[in-house]
């Protein structure tokens, strides 16, 4: 295991504004018609795991590729690791694992990691030492001297992760890192990401797996048709949808439909009262547990049995679906960049 002290060595770039990525007004048009990014602004704080979400063709990969100098932007203001986009000093401190990466299959796992280190200007003794440590860390210690041609897709993904970490990066950019990895491997990679964050590194995670993002990311951004439609912590993004739900036995109380009764709720608004079999679910928008006490008191005074009472918020999937749905038509946006 690489220690935290070792992780952040002397050559670390000082992040004056505490932002690992601070991009504004990123535009990219392919050809003359396909507008992949339209003024995207993205801030990723140092030391967090940040999730980049969006449907196919939303511009996620283009944004990542612009940061990694693989795609040239029309305009891109701001910094990555406190340096201009594409600055070689910053690139030397970034670990990157692209989606559908293609490492040469005649190389061994160790050679792949060492080659990645050499290209990031890591000196020979250090990269040899780190290659061994990292391959052990991603569970490939027993396979490090075998050629990639004998690896499964998941094993190549693990080697790719080790290669992305060999330069002791401050920022790790991962594009679909669990693609092709089995459930056990996914759990291990998730733990690895948390470990990387705990070492003080920043992780930008581009993934289609919402549960994966929800489990590890402290903040997320959602891109739709080249525009950033949401950015923040999952709590912040779902706070507007926070509600309190009470499930009681029997039918809905008659006062539910009385406006006066609704007004008695100190802070909140009844959203709905629905029958579910032999019970009834009362949903209050913007109400917390304290505010719900008068309602619970009244239900008890009416001898109603309260089965459940809890604060509920939108899942990330709900949030995502809301973001990719056109509010005027109620239809999901067409996949792909806007033209």
């Amino acid at each position, binding site marked *: 295991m690489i220690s935290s002290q070792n992780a952040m060595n002397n050559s670390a770039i000082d992040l004056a504004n505490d932002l690992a990525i601070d991009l504004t007004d990123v535009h990219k048009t392919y050809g003359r018609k396909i507008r992949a990014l339209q003024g995207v602004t993205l801030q990723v704080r140092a030391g967090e795991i940040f999730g980049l979400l969006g449907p196919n063709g939303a511009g996620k990969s283009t944004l990542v590729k612009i940061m990694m100098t693989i795609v040239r932007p029309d305009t891109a203001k701001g910094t990555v690791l406190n340096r201009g986009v594409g600055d070689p*000093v910053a690139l030397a401190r970034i670990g990157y694992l692209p989606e559908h990466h*293609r490492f*040469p299959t005649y190389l061994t796992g160790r050679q792949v990691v060492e080659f990645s280190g050499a290209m990031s200007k890591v000196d*020979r003794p250090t990269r040899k030492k780190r290659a061994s440590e990292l391959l052990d860390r991603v569970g490939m210690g027993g396979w490090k001297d075998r050629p990639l041609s004998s690896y499964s897709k998941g094993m190549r993904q693990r080697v790719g992760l080790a290669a992305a970490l060999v330069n002791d990066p401050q920022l790790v950019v991962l594009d679909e890192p669990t693609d092709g990895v089995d459930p056990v491997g996914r759990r291990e990679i998730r733990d690895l990401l948390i470990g990387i964050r705990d070492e003080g590194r920043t992780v930008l995670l581009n993934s289609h797996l919402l549960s994966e993002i929800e489990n590890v990311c402290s903040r997320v951004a959602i891109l739709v048709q080249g525009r950033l439609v949401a950015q923040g912590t999952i709590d912040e993004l779902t706070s507007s949808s926070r509600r309190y739900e009470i499930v009681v036995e029997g039918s809905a109380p008659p006062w539910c439909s009385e406006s006066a009764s609704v007004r008695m709720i100190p802070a909140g608004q009844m959203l709905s009262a629905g029958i579910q079999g032999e019970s009834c679910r009362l949903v209050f928008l913007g109400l917390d547990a304290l505010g719900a006490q008068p309602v619970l008191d009244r239900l008890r005074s009416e001898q109603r049995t309260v089965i459940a009472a809890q604060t509920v918020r939108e899942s990330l999937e709900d949030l995502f679906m809301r973001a990719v749905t056109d509010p005027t038509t109620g239809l999901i946006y067409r996949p792909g960049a806007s033209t």
Partner: protein
Amino acid sequence: MMQTLAIFVGAYRELSARKIFWLALAISLLVVGLFACLGINETGISFLGWTFESPMFSTNTTSPETFYKLLFVNLGVDWWLGVLSTLLALVTTCGIIPDLVAPGSIDLLLAKPITRTRLFLTKYCTGLLFAALQVFVFSTASFFVIGLRGGAWEWALFAAVPIVTFFYSLLFSMCAFIGVLTRSSVASLILTLLAWTIIFTINISESIVNSGRIANQMEATKIESELAKTEDPVDEDKREELTSDLEKTLANRPTWDRAHFWFFGVKTFLPKTTDTLKLLDRWLLDGASMPSRNEESERGPQQAFGPKRVKRGEFQRAVKADEQSHSIWWVLGTSLVFEGIVLGLATVIFVRRDY
């Protein structure tokens, strides 16, 4: 430097992982082995104990040292390294640039702190590694064969390494350009071979037209000389014949000159693949004890465009002198300009593209 070294080590691993690399090396050694089996004695050429009598090649006319040098240049370099080995090298390396720009592969490299120009040019140079290794192994083996069998330790043989590698770089620059443009190994190989064929055809055409032009000049000079000697009135018929021949010869001159002007003009802008390999002739065979391949006989039938009244050997020497009147710097310089332009265009495309 660390990155350049890593790319070269990676390229060596890539080459050594390909069977064709080892196959080409094995054939190289086999070719040299065949050279070693050939010998020269008083009556002719020997091969594994058998002797094939030859009035042209024997120790009476050719020293063993020159014999092996001739084998090395005319068969080893011109045919094996210049054609067959080059074909194998192109087949092996045509995928280097398309593989570099392939999705999933290029991302890994561009995300590293290395400029695109440097990355592309370094990768291009790794393609030359194959050719350089092949020629080096071949030259080293030939060095020992000529040393042990011919009795001469000829260090100049190693001039083949830079010369043949440069020759290969002319072709590989086109391969790299097509590779970056089409991203296809097959297209790179086929179009490079096509370009090579066109260049070869133009070179040969220019050579033929130039021979015709020189023959025309020599013929005219010879006739004028014979006319000057034939002043006796008894030879009036001969004078008429000579005058008629001279008029015909002079009438053809503008056609030869014009044809040569155009072929030479086109050739000037193209890489001098054939002339580059011929540079070895200059260094290895000139000054050897035996006349080189173009001067082996003063007799024999005249070539297609050869002058009728001039000895074959004299004509061949004149053609060779004309070929060698182009300086090494003209051969290498104009080729380098072509390579620079092609490689520059390929680099611009590589640098400006989104992946």
